[in-house]
């Protein structure tokens, strides 16, 4: 870690980055219907302003010595030896994320003005989007793990609200709940990591924790790494917590683009990259990250091949691509920059793809089943071109964004050397082939072939307010990779965080060979997709008789079924059993005691016969007893 300076000038006002969208959200939520008319403009305006401010801050940061400033705001919690300040850390890593979040966020806000134009609750939508942007910025700007946690759960809330935006649909409401709860499973990991940090080091700030990793015992570091990984898995939809992300597509498409593709789901990668010193100190934790990334990469790619819902394909693609990023950051110092570069380019092309998918849905009457598309290339030219560029970027078409960043990851995987290097590299290459397959399939089903539209659907191009952001993102999809690798090397920008980029040592395989190999595999995947889909007639309903492999892929390797049978059903059963135990058992004991007392008292009451003479006898007996006792006491 380099020396962190106190903030000056514009950077001291970087808290406005968070405050602006937050204020926007507050105005829109509290203002009620009065803000309906201009709410979307305010919502967009705050994010655009945040983007401009972020850009200015980044420019200023470039001139700061050590490129890391600390913005101390106020004391959040201070008691005993715990001292958590509310403060921001503006360094190259957070700057990159700020630009991604506000930049893509602003574009998607603009797009949403058109996309949500006919929704009566558009104002609420923009309020939630602003809330998300604010929470996400807090997540990446916070200077301690507690601040990160606050943002972390904040984006979870925004994601919940936005997935459930159309809450009258039970599927949306359920998906939102599922997302929140699975995220919370990850949050437990993150929370426990924070507890361990405090117990061991007495602080939760990045500076205090990451600067002192060396003091910790090896086992503690590994435990920390694994706990952080659990948190990252929940937020980023990584194995075994990946099942919520495809369901989250129930939300409006701009939400899928911003939250469930470009920004929030990449928070896990940010967390691991931010905690680099911890993972650097624990090879075993890093290995687990690698394994998680590789598994998720494959699960996402396989499941993506068999989906018919255009957004689900893109969602599984996101799962898979984040798997690549995890794989990259799991490789350690050589992979951080590659993973983050892929994160950025992915932010561009996946957001573009989702917006394109939204544009298609917009023109097709909210139909999401690709089997009912076809031949849209001519009807929606702008969408087709921008989507096509995003597609090429994603599959890694030479010289487009994905080519630069994904190849870098695959190279790094092979460079790990040994059996594991070959294995990981092989998985990554195979994943690239599958990506080409499912994306080509998506393209063919949507834009080519014979129209298979529903009756009464008249595809049309979307309005300019929607296509302009798509064009901008398409440009980013084409150019971002080249820019980030060759023109403004990300590795140099991030050097203060991760150290100087190591000089290319001996490569296991020459980079050129890797590129050729990957390109060939990608071509193979695309050709296979064409053989399956492009040259045959596509049935409008999915065939029921399919091989077990396809069935497994359709069900996303049965992740939901496993969750249901292992967790949900036993959980419900346990709950019912406990309710019974509590009502009959615990409360039964209480009520039983009461009943026993009541019963014995009524039984004792029977002694009250009503015969005066028996009472008299009782009195006499009592008097004799007392007298006898007196005698006994005085005599004894």
């Amino acid at each position, binding site marked *: 870690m380099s020396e962190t300076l106190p903030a000056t000038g514009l950077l001291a006002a970087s808290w406005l980055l968070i405050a602006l969208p937050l204020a926007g959200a507050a105005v829109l939520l509290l203002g009620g219907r009065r803000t309906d008319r201009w709410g979307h403009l305010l919502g967009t305006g705050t994010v655009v302003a945040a983007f401009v401010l972020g850009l200015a801050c980044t420019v200023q940061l470039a001139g700061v010595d050590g490129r890391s400033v600390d913005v101390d705001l106020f004391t959040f919690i201070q008691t*005993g030896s715990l001292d958590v300040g509310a403060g921001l850390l503006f360094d190259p890593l957070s700057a990159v994320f700020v630009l991604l979040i506000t930049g893509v966020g602003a574009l998607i806000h603009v797009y949403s003005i058109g996309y949500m134009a006919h929704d009566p609750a558009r104002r609420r939508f923009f309020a939630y989007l602003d809330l998300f942007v604010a929470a996400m910025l807090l997540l990446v700007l916070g200077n301690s793990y507690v601040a990160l946690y606050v943002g972390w759960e904040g984006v979870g809330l925004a994601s919940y609200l936005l997935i459930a935006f159309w809450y009258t649909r039970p599927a949306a409401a359920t998906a939102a709940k599922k997302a929140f709860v699975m995220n919370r499973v990850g949050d437990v990991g993150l929370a426990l990591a924070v507890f361990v940090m405090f117990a061991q080091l007495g*602080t939760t700030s990045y500076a205090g924790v990451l600067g*002192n990793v060396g003091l910790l015992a090896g086992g503690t570091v590994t435990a920390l790494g694994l706990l952080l990984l659990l948190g990252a898995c929940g937020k980023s939809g990584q194995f075994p917590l990946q099942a919520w992300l495809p369901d989250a597509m129930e939300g409006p498409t701009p939400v899928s683009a911003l939250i469930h593709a470009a920004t929030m789901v990449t928070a896990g990668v940010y967390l691991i990259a931010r905690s680099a010193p911890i993972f650097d100190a624990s090879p075993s934790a890093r290995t687990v990250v690698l394994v998680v990334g590789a598994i998720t990469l494959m699960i996402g790619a396989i499941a993506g091949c068999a989906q018919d819902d255009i957004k689900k394909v893109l969602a599984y693609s996101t799962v898979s691509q984040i798997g690549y990023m995890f794989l990259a950051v799991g490789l350690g110092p050589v992979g951080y920059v590659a993973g983050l570069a892929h994160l950025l380019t992915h932010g561009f092309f996946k957001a573009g793809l989702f917006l394109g998918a939204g544009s298609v849905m917009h023109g097709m009457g909210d139909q999401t089943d690709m089997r009912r598309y076809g031949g849209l290339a001519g009807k929606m030219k702008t969408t087709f071109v921008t989507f096509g560029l995003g597609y090429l970027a994603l599959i890694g078409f030479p010289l487009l964004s994905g080519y630069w960043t994904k190849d870098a990851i695959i190279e790094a995987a092979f460079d790990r050397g040994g059996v594991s290097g070959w294995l990981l590299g092989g998985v990554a290459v195979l994943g690239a082939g599958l990506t080409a397959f499912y994306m080509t399939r998506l393209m063919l089903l949507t834009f080519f072939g014979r129209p298979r539209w529903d009756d009464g659907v008249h595809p049309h191009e979307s309005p300019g307010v929607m296509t302009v952001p798509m064009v901008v993102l398409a440009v980013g999809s084409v150019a971002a990779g080249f820019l980030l690798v060759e023109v403004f090397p990300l590795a140099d920008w991030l050097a203060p965080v991760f150290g100087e980029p190591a000089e290319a040592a001996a490569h296991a395989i020459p980079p050129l060979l890797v590129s050729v190999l990957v390109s060939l595999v990608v071509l193979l995947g695309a050709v296979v997709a064409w053989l399956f889909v492009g040259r045959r007639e596509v049935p409008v309903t999915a065939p029921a008789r399919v091989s077990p492999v396809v069935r497994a892929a359709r069900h996303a390797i049965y992740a939901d079924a496993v969750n249901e049978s292992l967790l949900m059903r036993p959980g419900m059963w346990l*709950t019912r059993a406990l*309710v019974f135990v*509590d009502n009959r058992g*615990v409360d039964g004991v209480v009520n039983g005691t009461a009943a026993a007392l009541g019963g014995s008292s009524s039984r004792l009451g029977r002694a009250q016969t009503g015969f005066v003479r028996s009472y008299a006898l009782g009195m006499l007996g009592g008097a004799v007893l007392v007298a006898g006792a007196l005698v006994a006491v005085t005599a004894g």
Partner: protein
Amino acid sequence: MSDFPWLLAMIVVPAAGAAVVAALPRGRDLLAKQVALGVSLLVFLLAVLATVAFDTGGPRFQLTTSVSWIADFGVSFALGVDGIALVMLLLIGLLVPVVLVASWADTMPAHRSMRSYVAWLLLLEAMMVGVFAATDVFLFYVFFEAMLVPMYFLIGSYGGPRRQYAAMKFFLYSLVGGLVMLASVIGLYVVSNSQLGQGTFAFDALRQLDIDPGVQKLLFIGFFVAFAIKAPLVPFHTWLPDSGAEAPIGGAVLLVGVLDKVGTFGFLRYCLPLFPDASRDLAPWILVLAVIGVLYAALLAMGQSDMKRLVSYTSIAHFGFIALGIFAFTTEAATGAVLYMVSHGIATGLLFLVIGMLIARGGSRHIRDYGGVAAKAPLLAGVFLIAGLASLSLPGTSSFVSELLVLIGAFPTRPVFTILATTGIILAALYILIMYQRTMHGPPRGVLLADDEPAAAVPAGTSGGATAVMDAPARTRSLRVQDLSRRELAVVAPLVALIVALGVYPQPLIDLVRPAVAATMDDVGSDPGGITPTHPGSEGTN
């Protein structure tokens, strides 16, 4: 002004107010409500002024008033507050007016008047202030028991269909606990008599005693049982779901929001300082109960169909967290526990109030009778969500700060218990979101569909809602599933604002309670300065 008897005034004013309201002629309900609201606002003002007069750097107990009461037994009417008691007084002062406004339009069961209801509320307020302000153990005991009476009538006279069962259960449970505690109180007197030569009930004197460990354990258990019943720890909890479900909403808010806090307050004020050795020895067992409570009650909450019961069970889970914070014996966790008491009072109070507003519209306490309410009443749904999120300790709400402090403070000394309790946050998300989804999301269901039917279509007796609603079906039916009224907004707004304010900037509250917490930790033999990390060498870099 600092020698003004703030605390005495805070007891006398509501008690006098209760007498005045009760003496009003029959039928003057509106006047009764106005008088009660005025009195409760005055108490709130007194609480705020008392907070201003309180000096966080001063001695432990401030604003003291002491009058000899039963001189023969060394009993005095001694009042005084530390920071912990003071924030509880603020909470009482805040919640009572809120509850009064919330109950403004309630219709009472047959033969019960609003006048008597608000009179009992004010009397309850006086008793609760007394409990938190007493610095004489005997006086504390008197208030502790006296507090039961108004609550008994609030539940038993103004509650739901099974109110008498619930009220009796509440009363008997509390009485058993109280009597066990009385034995310990007397035991303390005896010990003080033999050690000091003159028996006393004064807290400060009792704190100096050096009690034999065996005796300490017995006396500790006496206090502990009473407090564990009051702030229900599993397995002493079964009265709370019944009481919480049957009590009128206002009563339920005060019951769960404040009255139950006497238990956790008692742990901190009496169990730890008076019996430090016993506390240390028995802490593992109590922590077992606390963690069981966190998980067990959360699972039970998920299985409830009655919203008020559900919230009651969530409170039991929250009390588990508070107990964990107290019996971890670290400054951080105990601060968290105190904050938790406050934030739980606000958040769960708000949750109860919102559910009450929902019940007032739908006439049913059951989740299955609602669905899709958000479409008809977005404000109601929004406030419900905020209350729910505060209950599941989302960052940005006051509960997050307190839960974080409890867990982060308990982790260094009790890692296993803390890890188990931390998994409770998943369950919290489940029970809140399941309830929210079923009532607020989805297509219209239940009472929303019955909207156009004549009022008689839903027979009053079967809905199982608060009696307040069932006795006046015709009027409320036509009002239901409207969004929040101005009065209801006035009820929820201060609570929502506090939840957010304390969630973002909790430090003033922490500063208020920190000296008292540190003193308590000192009493129990922990480092009041907080936890020493395993690798303290890192401190300089923070």
